[in-house]
Structure formats: structure tokens, C-alpha cells
């Protein structure tokens, strides 16, 4: 630069009023071979003018002029903002003056007597000036183009340029001396900042992007270069030069997000080569949906994923693009994934020119969902049509139902008392909808005069209620037919609770009513009939286990209506537990159709008494033969049953008696014959063995047998008398009777020893009873005591004691005989029972005693110790 300047003449403005001085300068400069152009001026005015017209590069000034001095020159330049170096030429100058003039702005000064230095001085000054100007320009350029901050080694701000202030929105005063960290945005990590500091403190350049926070909290991005200034190898200040890249950053982020979005877009984006048709790009969406990797995709062409297209069809499809007829085509097809599955797509295809190459760009939309939605729409449309058809159907059904149920519907508007009737309502009233306009009063006219008042009252009374109201009444149809109808209706209100309308139904119940009456009649007849038969009627609904009884049933079971819960289970609780199983089984058999229900069972009343019941029933079945209902009767047959039982008992007794009789006859005949056969035997022997003289013994044997026979016959007689003879009660002196018996038995004969008789009976004691029977009793007991004496006992005795109370007489007969073994003690009273091997007696004795005592209404008890003795206690009533 300087070289260029030197070739061009240096324009010098010389402020000098002394000609020789100015000539000298000219001369010196010429001698120095410096290309100059000099203009000399002498006063201020000239000076100022020349500044404009001459355009000097440098000013030489004499210090003192008549109206002017160099200080003024400098000042004028300053004021006019003209940037030209000034060299002062002066005669003598003091040190203070020199310093002053330099301070004012002179670039150099020269002593007049040292003018040889002038060329060098000028060159140096100009050089410096140029350099300064360059530096200033650079600084300016920097200042206006960049954001500059200079900090000391600690990071405190030394200076900032205007742009910095504008960018950070801080005033210069707010920044100077502060740590730049005040602009931290929080974007950068600690590592990032540490790295930055380390770099610059080590004297290295740092370049990066920094996000800062402005005074108002907004953020901005700077592309920053930090240059450390080194002194002795150490950083003493840092110069940060930055450009604002906020917009760029934002654009970048947007671009990134856009790119990401694009990448992430589930729409499939492909590019493929127009010649080879091979894919050159597939976005994430494409790869995901198809299932191919990027590498795999690039080996494929669109035909590979379009099962419906051939090369020919595809080329035909894309020809409008190729031929520039269209800029973009849209078509629908199916794409096939790597795994073979197919999905419907909408394809937007363009032919793009990028740089030199043309590419097909396809945006593919997977329209599976859309198709689904379309299908759903069709389906729902179908559904809707179906529903409306159903609705029509239901409407028809309602009309039909009403007619079948003979129920019509109606509405009455409360305000106007106008009515709306359904088809069936018209039917019921026998009216033509075309001819009759239903109103409340019109309706009332159709109501039977007897019921009119009550119907109207019911209707009016229902207004204000919230429940369903109902009423039955008679009507006269148009043709004069009388019918019975049941009306059911409720009221509707508006939100002020004002009644709007009555909505109801009207059912023709004429036939039902008639049936009810008929049923009533039949029921009454049935009730009369069953009452007459004293049969209770029951009705069991099998499905619900509901059991209904009539009054007679309750009477039969002796229950009140609230004692019976009306179920089959409840009924079975009254059955006798022994009959429960069988009765239930019979019922089941009837239900299954195996047999009719005809069962006799017992029930138990509350008071525990048992009654016999005869139950009959008929099973009612549905069309499939399944039992649904059982209707039956119960009759109390306790009386008959009892009579039956008595009869049975009597029969049994009779049989028993008969068999006893048979037994008796055989026993009697045996016992009668036995002695006889013995006798025959003895006689035979005697006749045969006449040589033996055992006549006496044999005759004795005969006698024994005869006696036995006789005794037996007597017993039988006694037995018969006891059974048949009437009781003849008389006052009997007991002691006398006993003494008599003793006497008669004294000489009982045979091998039997006499026993001691002890009579411990009061002489006065009398008994009021039947003498014959008492005699039999005493006779038998005492004779037994004698017969069954203990042979080893030296002193056998029989003792009789007696005592009376008001109502009874007790007689005790005791002996010290052989006694009776315990196990035989009850048997001894059996007919024909003989207790001992000793074979006298008929076995009837004690039986007779028992029978006699029975007749006397007395009783007998026996105590005995085997080998020691026996004691009989007789108790007879004494009246």
C-alpha cells in the first residue's frame, strides 16, 4: 500500500508564511527524491480552503504565524473531522511545548535547523498514518459487522462494541467490569464451558456456538471466535468476535425437525431411478411398513412391491409423468410387504429434476385404516337400514300384538281432552277411525251408564298422581254390544308439574270376565262336593312348588292358614317320619306316570296326635307330557283305620285263641292218654309175667297213674269253671278257708312227707271275693309248696300270711322247698309248664292260679332262692 502511495505524489500542505522556509522544504524533499506536490498557505483562510481543494495527504506547519499557529491547525482539522497527519516545523521548541503539541495531535515535530530529517519524518508519519487508517478501517469493519467483547484474563469485560450492546440489550455501563457469565443461557454443559476456558487460558483459539440470554430473557445464538492476547506467553486478555446466528440456528432446528418429521413420517417416501426403476431412497416410514432394510430396498423396484402391476402396466401408468403431460399422478393399488402381507395404498407420484438427475418421487399413503373406516361406514349404513327395518317390523308387531291381546292404547291431552286412539282401541269400541274423532266426552258416552260416573271420577282423580291407575268398566259398542274393559293409565307432566297428558291402554276382558264367572261357579260346586265328602282339595304347581289348600285341608291337618307356608316342602313336614319316604316315592311315581297317586299315610298334628290320611291325586301335564300340576284330595280315615286295626287285632286274637285251643286240646289229650298208656303197659307186663310176683308194685303203679289221671281231669274242670263261671263275690273268712285247704292236702299221699302248716292269718280277717276261685288259688299254691319240698330239709313247712288294707288283701305263701331257678320264674305260669323233673302235677296248676287271679283282678308275684325256698305274694282287690 505504502509502495503505491509512494509512486503517487504525496500531497503536502505547507503552512508557512516565510518563503525561503518553504522553498527549503521543497528543496530538501526534492533532494530526497520523494515525489511530492506542495502547496503553501500562509493564513487560516487559505488553509481551510486548501483542505477541500488540495486534498492533502500530510500537513507541514510552521509553528508561529502572524494569525495562526500549529495548534490551531490541529484544532481546525479536528473540528472539521479531517484526518490528516500534521508535522510541526519549528525553530526552537521547548520540551514542554513539544509534549503539548504531540498531545494536541501532531504526528511529529521537526526543528528548522534539522530539516534533513524531514523526508524520513514524512515517510514514517505517512506510513504510520496508513497503518493506523488500516487498523481503524479494520476496526470499523469489525465493529460494524461483528459483535465484539474484550475481557481481561478473569473474564471481566473491558470493552464491548455497539453490536454487543444491541444484541445483549444491555447498556455498555451495565457490561463493563462484569463477568460475561451473566449472559449464560443454561444451554451449555459445564464440560463445554470448562473446555472453553481451558482452551483460551492455555493461549489457544476457541471457536464454537454459544447460546446467550439477553437482558429481557430472550435467547440468541452466537458463532464465536475467542482470541487470547498473549504477553510473555500468558493470556492477559480475550477478544471475542461473534456473529449472530440465532436465525440460522432456528432455521437449522426447524430444518432438523422438519427433516426428522419427514423421516419419522409414517407416510412412505421413495425415490427411484426413472430408467432402472431401482429405489434410491426410502424414508423410515417406507422401510418400517415394508419391512425391508435400506440395503434390501435399494435392490428392489416398485414392481417388486406391487403385486398387481407388471412392467408394461407400470410404464403405462407413469407415462404421463415421463411425457410431461402431467406433473403429478395419483393412483391406488396394493403393496406387498417383505412378509408377504398386502395393504392398500394411495400413491402420489412425481418426476423430479434435482440437479442433473431426474428421479421419481413417490409419497405412499397406507390407506388400510381409511379402507377400514370406509367399510365401517358401509357396515353402519347397512346396520342402520337393518335397524329401521326392524323398527318398522316392531311397529307392525305392536299393532298385531295389540290386536291379539285385544288391548288398544290411547292418549288424552289434558288441556283439550282430545284423544288419540290406536287401531285396536277403535276395534274394541267397534268404531271406524275415519268416522269417529275420539275425545274424552265421546269416550264417556260409550261407557255403560252405570259405570260412567265412576270412570269419569277415576280419570279426574288420577290427574296429579304419579302411579298407574286402573279401572274395569262396561262399555256399549256402537252396535250395542256390551263389553267389559280394563283401562290402565298414567299421567305425564311438564317441568312445571302441569299435567300434559294421560297415556293408557284399554283391554277387552269380556271373555276373561265370562270365564271368571264360569270358573267361580264351577269352583263353588266343587267346594260343595268336597265339603260333603269331607275331602280336602289341594293344588300343587310343580314348577313353583306352590301348594294351595282349601279350608277342609286346613281342618284335616289341624292348622291355621298362617301355619302353612304353601309349599310341597311345608306339607311333607307334617308327615309321620316313617311314612315320609314312601309317600314321597308314591308322589314321584305319579309324576313320572308310573302309577296314580293313591296313598295312605300318617300325619302328626301339632298336639302330637297321629291321623291316618288317604291321598289321591291326578297329574296335569303339558303338551310334552311333562307334569306341571297335581290336583288331589286328602281324607282323614283315622276312624276307619282304627276300626280296621281293632278288627285285625281281634282277628289275631281269635287266631291266637284258636291255636291256643288246638294246643290245649293236644296237651289235654296227651296228658289224659299218658297215664292210660302207662297203665296199659303195666297191665301187659303183668299179664305176660304172671310168674313174677310183683303184683303189689304193679298195682301201685296203676294206682298212681289213675290218680294222676283223676287229678288232671279235676284241673281241667277247674280251668273250665274259672273261665266260664261268673264271679260270685261274698264275704270269706280267710283263716277258715286256709285251714280247709290245709286239711284237704294233709294226706296228699304217695311218697310225700307231711309238712308243717303255719297259718299266720288273723281270725277276724275277711275278704270279699269269689270263694271258688280263691280256693283254687290257695289250693294250688299250697299243694305245690308241699310237693316241691326239699327232701334234704328235715323240717319242711308251708306258711300263709295275710293282711288287708282298705282296697286290697295281701296273701303270702312261703315254703322252704327246692325253690325255682331264676330263668324259669316267668315260665311257671305258662299252661302245661312243669318246672321239675319230678313228674307229678299237670302243669296246669300255676296257670290256673294266674287265670283265676286275672278273673279276680288280682296279681301274683314270686320270689325264690334255688334250694332254699319260694314265696308267692297274691294281691286281690277287696271290695
Amino acid at each position: 500500500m505504502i509502495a503505491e502511495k509512494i509512486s503517487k505524489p504525496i500531497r503536502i500542505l505547507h503552512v508557512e508564511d516565510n518563503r525561503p522556509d518553504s522553498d527549503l522544504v521543497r528543496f530538501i524533499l526534492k533532494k530526497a527524491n520523494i515525489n511530492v506536490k506542495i502547496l503553501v498557505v500562509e493564513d487560516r483562510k487559505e488553509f481551510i480552503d486548501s483542505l477541500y481543494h488540495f486534498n492533502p495527504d500530510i500537513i507541514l506547519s510552521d509553528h508561529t504565524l502572524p494569525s495562526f499557529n500549529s495548534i490551531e491547525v490541529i484544532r481546525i482539522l479536528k473540528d472539521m473531522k479531517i484526518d490528516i497527519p500534521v508535522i510541526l516545523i519549528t525553530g526552537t521548541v521547548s520540551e514542554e511545548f513539544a509534549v503539548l503539541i504531540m498531545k494536541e495531535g501532531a504526528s511529529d515535530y521537526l526543528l528548522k535547523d534539522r530539516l534533513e530529517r524531514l523526508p524520513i519524518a514524512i515517510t514514517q508519519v505517512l506510513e504510520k498514518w496508513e497503518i493506523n487508517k488500516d487498523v481503524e478501517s479494520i476496526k470499523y469493519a469489525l465493529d460494524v459487522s461483528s459483535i465484539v467483547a474484550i475481557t481481561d484474563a478473569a473474564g471481566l469485560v473491558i470493552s464491548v462494541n455497539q453490536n454487543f450492546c444491541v444484541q445483549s440489550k444491555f447498556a455498555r455501563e451495565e457490561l463493563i467490569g462484569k463477568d460475561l457469565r451473566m449472559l449464560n443461557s443454561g444451554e451449555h454443559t459445564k464440560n463445554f464451558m470448562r473446555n472453553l476456558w481451558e482452551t483460551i487460558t492455555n493461549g489457544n483459539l476457541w471457536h464454537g456456538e454459544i447460546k446467550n440470554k439477553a437482558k429481557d430473557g430472550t435467547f440468541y445464538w452466537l458463532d464465536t471466535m475467542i482470541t487470547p492476547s498473549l504477553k510473555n506467553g500468558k493470556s492477559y486478555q480475550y477478544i471475542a468476535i461473534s456473529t449472530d446466528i440465532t436465525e440460522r440456528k432456528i432455521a437449522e432446528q426447524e430444518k432438523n425437525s422438519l427433516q426428522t418429521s419427514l423421516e419419522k413420517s409414517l407416510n412412505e417416501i421413495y425415490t427411484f431411478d426413472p430408467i432402472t426403476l431401482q429405489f434410491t431412497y426410502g424414508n423410515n416410514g417406507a422401510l418400517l411398513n415394508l419391512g425391508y432394510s435400506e440395503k434390501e430396498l435399494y435392490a428392489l423396484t416398485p414392481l417388486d412391491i406391487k403385486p398387481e402391476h407388471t412392467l408394461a402396466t407400470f410404464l403405462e401408468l407413469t407415462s404421463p409423468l415421463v411425457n410431461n403431460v402431467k406433473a403429478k399422478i395419483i393412483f391406488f393399488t396394493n403393496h406387498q410387504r417383505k412378509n408377504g402381507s398386502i395393504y392398500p395404498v394411495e400413491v402420489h407420484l412425481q418426476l423430479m429434476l434435482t440437479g442433473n438427475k431426474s428421479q421419481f418421487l413417490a409419497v405412499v399413503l397406507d390407506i388400510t385404516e381409511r379402507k377400514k373406516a370406509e367399510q365401517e361406514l358401509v357396515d353402519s349404513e347397512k346396520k342402520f337400514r337393518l335397524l329401521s327395518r326392524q323398527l318398522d317390523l316392531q311397529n307392525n308387531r305392536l299393532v298385531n300384538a295389540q290386536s291379539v291381546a285385544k288391548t288398544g292404547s290411547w292418549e288424552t291431552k289434558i288441556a283439550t281432552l282430545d284423544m288419540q286412539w290406536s287401531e285396536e282401541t277403535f276395534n274394541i269400541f267397534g268404531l271406524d277411525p275415519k268416522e269417529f274423532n275420539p275425545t274424552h266426552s265421546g269416550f264417556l258416552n260409550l261407557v255403560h251408564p252405570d259405570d260412567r260416573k265412576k270412570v269419569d271420577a277415576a280419570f279426574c282423580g288420577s290427574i296429579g298422581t304419579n302411579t298407574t291407575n286402573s279401572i274395569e268398566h262396561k262399555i256399549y259398542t256402537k252396535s250395542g254390544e256390551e263389553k267389559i274393559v280394563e283401562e290402565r293409565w298414567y299421567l305425564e307432566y311438564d317441568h312445571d308439574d302441569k299435567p300434559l297428558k294421560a297415556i293408557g291402554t284399554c283391554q277387552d276382558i269380556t271373555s276373561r270376565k265370562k270365564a271368571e264367572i264360569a270358573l267361580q261357579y264351577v269352583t263353588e260346586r266343587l267346594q260343595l262336593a268336597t265339603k260333603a265328602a269331607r275331602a280336602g282339595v289341594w293344588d300343587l304347581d310343580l314348577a313353583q312348588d306352590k301348594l294351595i289348600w282349601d279350608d277342609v285341608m286346613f281342618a284335616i291337618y289341624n292348622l291355621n292358614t298362617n301355619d302353612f307356608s304353601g309349599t310341597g316342602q311345608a306339607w311333607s313336614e307334617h308327615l309321620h317320619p316313617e311314612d315320609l319316604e314312601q309317600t314321597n316315592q308314591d308322589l314321584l311315581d305319579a309324576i313320572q306316570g308310573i302309577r296314580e297317586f293313591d296313598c295312605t299315610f300318617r300325619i302328626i298334628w301339632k298336639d302330637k296326635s297321629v291321623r291316618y290320611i288317604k291321598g289321591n291325586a291326578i297329574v296335569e301335564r303339558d303338551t310334552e307330557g311333562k307334569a306341571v300340576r297335581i290336583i288331589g284330595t286328602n281324607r282323614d280315615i283315622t276312624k276307619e283305620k282304627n276300626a280296621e286295626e281293632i278288627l285285625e287285632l281281634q282277628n289275631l286274637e281269635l287266631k291266637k285263641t284258636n291255636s291256643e285251643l288246638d294246643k290245649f286240646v293236644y296237651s289235654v289229650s296227651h296228658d289224659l292218654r299218658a297215664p292210660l298208656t302207662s297203665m296199659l303197659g303195666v297191665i301187659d307186663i303183668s299179664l305176660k309175667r304172671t310168674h313174677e310176683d310183683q303184683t303189689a308194685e304193679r298195682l301201685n303203679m296203676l294206682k298212681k297213674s289213675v290218680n294222676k289221671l283223676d287229678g288232671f281231669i279235676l284241673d281241667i274242670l277247674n280251668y273250665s269253671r274259672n273261665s266260664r263261671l261268673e264271679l260270685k263275690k261274698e264275704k270269706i273268712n280267710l283263716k277258715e278257708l286256709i285251714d280247709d285247704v290245709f286239711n284237704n292236702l294233709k294226706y296228699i299221699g304217695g311218697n310225700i312227707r307231711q309238712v308243717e302248716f303255719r297259718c299266720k292269718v288273723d281270725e277276724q280277717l275277711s275278704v270279699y271275693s269269689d270263694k271258688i276261685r280263691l280256693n283254687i288259688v290257695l289250693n294250688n299254691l299250697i299243694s305245690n309248696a308241699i310237693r316241691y319240698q326239699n327232701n334234704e330239709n328235715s323240717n319242711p313247712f308251708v306258711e300263709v300270711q295275710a293282711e288287708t288294707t282298705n282296697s286290697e288283701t295281701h296273701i303270702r305263701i312261703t315254703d322252704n322247698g327246692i325253690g325255682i331257678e331264676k330263668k324259669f320264674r316267668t315260665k311257671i305260669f305258662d299252661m302245661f309248664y312243669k318246672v321239675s323233673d319230678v313228674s307229678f302235677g299237670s302243669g296246669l296248676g300255676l296257670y290256673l292260679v294266674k287265670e283265676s287271679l286275672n278273673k279276680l283282678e288280682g296279681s301274683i308275684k314270686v320270689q325264690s332262692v334255688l334250694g332254699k325256698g319260694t314265696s308267692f305274694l297274691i294281691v286281690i282287690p277287696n271290695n
Partner: protein
Amino acid sequence: MNTTNSNFQFKNLWVIDDNEIDLYLAQMFIEEASFAEEISLFNSPLKALELLKCLENKPEQLPQFIFLDIRMPVMDGFEFLTEYDKFPDSIKLNCIVIMLSSSLDPNDQRKIENNSLVKQFLSKPLSEETLGRLKKEFK
């Protein structure tokens, strides 16, 4: 059957009857008929049972015949048979039981027919003819 002594048909015979006259008669007739060498008379069936039990291992002392009365006190003829049935076959097969009775009760007759232990039923009184028939039958 023991035929060692030709005089007597059988060696040992028991009569069980509660009536002493009938026992006497039985003895007479059996002796008369030389029916058996030894005659044992029991007026108690219990005593007879006791003895039978003792003789279980002495078969030579067992009776070949038992004449049994039906009507006896304490234990009648049928009750005796029930107890007798409990004896081992060694005893039962040795004896022939004959029931004696003056009973006309058809029940009794039926009971005897149904009882396999009783070989025959005889009516009292025993007689020469009856015993003769028996001798021939059970030779």
C-alpha cells in the same frame, strides 16, 4: 352194630323219659325182647347229655339206641335233640334216636319228620311187636 353176643341184638341202649312208670315199662319190654345187653334209664335229658359228652372218646360205651320221650319238663325231646345235634359226628353216627310219645299233636309229628336225627317215631306204650319190628329194621 355189635353182634358179638347173639343173645342180644344191641349192646347198649338208653331210655330218656320223665315218667318212672314209663321207664320201668320200657326196661321190661326191652329185656323181654332181648333187645339190648345194657339198658340205661334217664329221667332227665340233661343227665343223658352230660354222659354223652363224657363218652365222646369212648365209642364202645356209646348207646346204639336212644329212646327219647317228647313231653318232658325243663327240656323236652326236641330241645334235647337241639343240644344233641351239637355233638360231633363220632357220637351221632353211632346212635339211632327213636322218639317215643303218646302225643297226637300233628305239629309234633311234623317236627319229628323234619328232624334228620330221629330215625323213627313210636307210640307209647312199647310192645313186643314194636320192638320186634325195630329189631328187623336195624339188623
